[in-house]
């Protein structure tokens, strides 16, 4: 285990940081060495990527706050237009440097304005002698904004001529970001997934105060045994751990087993966790419902999940309309005459089906069809005579709304 060491920062802070970011020490020390000392210029832009909940956001946030580095932290999903994003950065800059809450409204429409206002903001405060970090979380959203935003952020240091470093966090690789025309290449860094050992370590860290760490670690071990196959999301696992812990403790609370009786506890919790995997984890039933079930001691079978309610009650003609749409989308047009006409004449069996049609149409997916064909099939499959009334046409538009049918072309 490499201990974090850096001459520029006090050892106590570094120690605290190390305890806060378990299993990410190597990445943190790498970052620290890139950052250098407070007043030193750092690399203009750093691109950090890794899977969901591999600790990107958390590590950056803890690192910057523990070491009290001046920083701006923005989520790009939340600020969905470039204007909102730039204004938010400026706003945070104002409040973080001056410390007062007198954030006056800023108006910043273009990047040019941003650079100007940014320079003003930085000079007005005593930030010149420190590196300012701008962290853009969910940076993949930047690609959807104006074309100049991403390249400009990558070389913000050069554009503003200030001591600033932009850190981009994303779940996808840098290759998918690179614009066609090329741009400044950021320093890329990969946060690998947590291994099962890491997960175990991190999850066991926060044990409830009433129970010992060992007891909780054993519980986490069982939990990971069940869920590791389907879910490596730390956030989700932590949530599940908290949800099911009460059930795990039940024998201990009632006095049937003591804390060391792992086998008994395992027998008690394992089927329960498996059920949780099929229900709560998939959000078939909500976690609050799950908790209530646990509390009342009921069986999860009583509560039907979301997928259980697949039955949709439809009016008479609507059913036929959907059937007709199904037929129209999977049958080739040529077969209509044969299937839906009473006296369709004889068809030679041998070459009726062309070769390529022998493969199942279901593998190829539904095909578009004209509206008239849909209605013609509808009229022929409904037993009694159907008048082509406005009500039937309006049904079609209703199903367009429900995404049961789609307009093509």
């Amino acid at each position, binding site marked *: 285990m490499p201990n974090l060491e850096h001459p520029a920062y006090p050892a106590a802070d570094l120690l605290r940081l190390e305890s806060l970011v378990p299993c990410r020490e190597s990445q943190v020390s790498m970052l620290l060495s890139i950052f250098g000392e407070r007043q030193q210029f750092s690399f203009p832009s750093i691109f950090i990527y890794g899977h*969901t909940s591999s600790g990107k956001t958390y590590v950056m946030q803890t690192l910057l706050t523990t070491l009290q580095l001046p920083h701006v932290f923005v*989520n790009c*999903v*939340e*600020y*969905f237009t470039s204007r*909102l994003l730039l*204004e*938010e950065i400026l706003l945070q800059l104002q409040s973080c440097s001056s410390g007062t809450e007198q954030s006056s*409204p800023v108006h910043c429409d273009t990047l040019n304005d941003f650079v100007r206002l940014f320079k003003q903001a930085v000079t007005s405060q005593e930030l010149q002698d420190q590196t300012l970090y701008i962290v853009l979380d969910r940076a993949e959203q930047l690609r959807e904004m104006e074309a100049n935003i991403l390249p400009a952020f990558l070389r913000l240091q050069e554009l503003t001529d200030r001591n600033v470093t932009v850190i981009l966090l994303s779940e996808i690789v840098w290759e998918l970001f690179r614009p066609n025309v090329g741009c400044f290449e950021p320093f890329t860094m990969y946060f690998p997934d947590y291994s099962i050992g890491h997960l175990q370590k991190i999850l066991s860290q*926060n044990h*409830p*105060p*009433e129970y010992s760490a060992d007891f909780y670690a054993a519980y986490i071990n069982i939990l990971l045994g069940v869920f590791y196959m389907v879910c490596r*999301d730390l956030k*989700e696992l*932590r*949530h599940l751990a*908290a*949800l099911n*812990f*009460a059930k795990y403790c039940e024998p201990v609370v009632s006095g049937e087993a003591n804390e060391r009786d792992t086998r008994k506890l395992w027998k008690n919790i394992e089927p329960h966790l498996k059920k949780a995997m099929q229900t709560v984890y*998939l*959000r078939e039933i*909500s*976690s*609050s*419902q799950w908790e209530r079930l646990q509390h009342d001691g009921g069986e999860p079978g009583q509560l*039907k999940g*979301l*997928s259980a*309610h*697949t*039955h*949709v*009650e*439809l*009016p*008479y*003609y*609507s059913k036929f309309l959907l059937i007709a749409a199904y037929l129209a989308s999977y049958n080739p047009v040529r077969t209509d005459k044969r299937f839906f006409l009473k006296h369709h004449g004889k068809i030679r069996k041998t070459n009726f089906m062309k070769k390529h049609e022998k493969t199942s149409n279901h593998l190829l997916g539904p095909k578009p069809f*004209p*509206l*008239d064909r849909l209605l*013609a099939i509808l009229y022929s499959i409904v037993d009694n005579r159907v*008048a*082509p*009334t*406005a*009500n039937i*046409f*309006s*049904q*079609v*538009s*209703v199903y367009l*709304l*429900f*995404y*049961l049918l789609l307009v093509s072309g």
Partner: protein
Amino acid sequence: GCFVFKPRTKKRRLSEKTAHDFGSTSENSEDIELRFVTCQSLWNQIKSETEQIQEDLNKQLLDNLVSFLSRSHSDFQEKTTEWTCRMKFREIPTAALVLGVNVTDHDLTFRGLSDVLQDNVTPYVALLEAKDCPGIKHLMQKLMGQLMNCDIVVDSLEDEDCVQASQNKIRCSMPSLISWYESVTKKTDSETPRKKRNSSSRHWQSPPVVVIFKDMESFTTKVLQDFIVISSQHIHELPLVLIFGIATSPMIIHRLLPHSVSSLLCIELFQSLSCKEHLATIIDKLLLTTRFPFKLGEKVLQVLINIFLYHDFSVQNFIKGFQLCIVEHFFSQPLSVLCCHLVDIKKRVYSLSNDQCENIRRLPSFRSYVEKQESGKQIELLTNDSFLKEETEKLLEDLHVYHENYVSILRCLHVFTSSLPKYPLGKQIRELHCACLENRVWETEEYESSLQLARMLNKTDLVTMLQQCVEILMSSSGKKFDKTVGKLKEFLTQFQNLEEASQERDVSVSSQKELQKKTDLYHLQKTLLEMKESRRSKKLTKFEMLRFEVVDYIDTLVRKYLVPADNRTLHEILYFNTATILRGHLNAAPRTALHTALNNPHWYLKNQALKCDGGGISNKAPDICIVYKLHLECGRLINLVDWLEAFSTVVMAAEEPNGDAVSSDQVDDVIHARFIRAVSELELLGFIKPSKQKTDHVARLTWGGC
């Protein structure tokens, strides 16, 4: 192709429909004002009744939702320090509200829902529709607009200018929403004690912000995902609750949202009442009641129910159709002035004018009634107005009484038929009602078979049914059923006695069996055969006798009271039965109408010159009709040049007598222009569209007229 999009409900026009509009036609203008007033008051009664029904039916659902909302954020506030709460990921409480495919009814439900929420839970309710939110930006704008507006409503007196100033230029982002929320909740805390008491009694300390997505299916995935991701990051500062209105099935949530997003939600499912049950209640409360003098005839009811079951499942449309029936009835039937409550009848009958009396005499049902009378009375009825009025009053009273009895007996019969296997007369009371209105129900095969089945009911069922019938008859207002109730009660006591008797007999039978126990096999066989023989030829048991009696009695009741309304004298006054008008209004066929108009313009224009014989194309028809008829003869692709030639030939046919077959270029230009206009009109109507395959061709979009 032809799509029909239902128009959105526009702002209610303040049309002061007056009695003058109501009876603009001169032929049936008697008592117009009175008719109009009666119609209005009747409709208002019915409207308030339906609203009440709707409210009652939704109560359960709304109560559940309110308790869900109260649970959603309160338990978090109580124990923030607890370990589990700290560890648990904070999900957004979400209610998935499954409402069924009847989209037209949803508006009313949502309106009721937001009213209830605003009264009981929180003033901050936002209703979002998919068509307003194509992007996350629009969604936020809409959301903030609605939330801040509702704030203005709450405390409009205090600081209107401040809010308005901030509204001018507001940043549509979550932080501004949060700061708004903080300021608002802080304000309510520091309010004057009087106001605080007021508000805190209705809302909680920090009321949740409820966002309702009216039509979940129509939202784009990206908008929903982004919104959920954003708001989940601020759930600690802003107690948000989402409500998804779902028309199809809750599976749609999984289809729209990936697991990474749906894991941010804490979804609970709520199901609204099925629309069929809703309709059953509406029919029960509106039609099978004596409260309203106006009644629907069989055909009309059938049309309304068919539209409901076959097309849209919409209760609102059913009620709208019912309203149309009322208006149409009062508008077209001059005698509908007598369609009022019993108390008013006498006054209205005696104030009838001479013309109205003639109207009565013209009613078919009255004429057949007259024919059945003796000659002296016939003359009196046809000549003496005051005698006629007396008679009319009596007949109308009879009609009211008839309906009252009809409803009670119908319910009794329904008790029997609804528990029979396979439901020969229908499961729902509406089916039975239609069958009874249609013709004499006791002459139908279904009735025959259901009586057969009723004769095979077991005793417990029969007794409970009889008890139900007694209850129904007792609760009906009339006193005419005293005798019937007495008779039914008598049956019940007989059944009671039977039970005691059979118990005694059981004992004797079992003792008899014990005697036989010791016989050998041969004897046993013999006795068994004997017993079988005796059973076959045995006379009916007492119970079976009684059962026959009961069924026969029910049969006599049905024959006596469930006479179809058409057979009653003066039924035209209370029953609306012109189904064709209703069908034309409610179940229009635009495509057929269009085809008729274009194919046979005489149908609508009523111009003698246009009257064409056979399939020929008249050149006097409007240009578009000529073009349409010509295009019917073409295949999928139409050559524009050929089409133009054919068109000009048809048009020129008129000028042929003039001599010049080869006309000058100027005329050709005019015809060309007319042709182009007609073709573009056809394109506008959706019959053709320009084709990309061949530039000088257009593609047909329809196959001939249907």
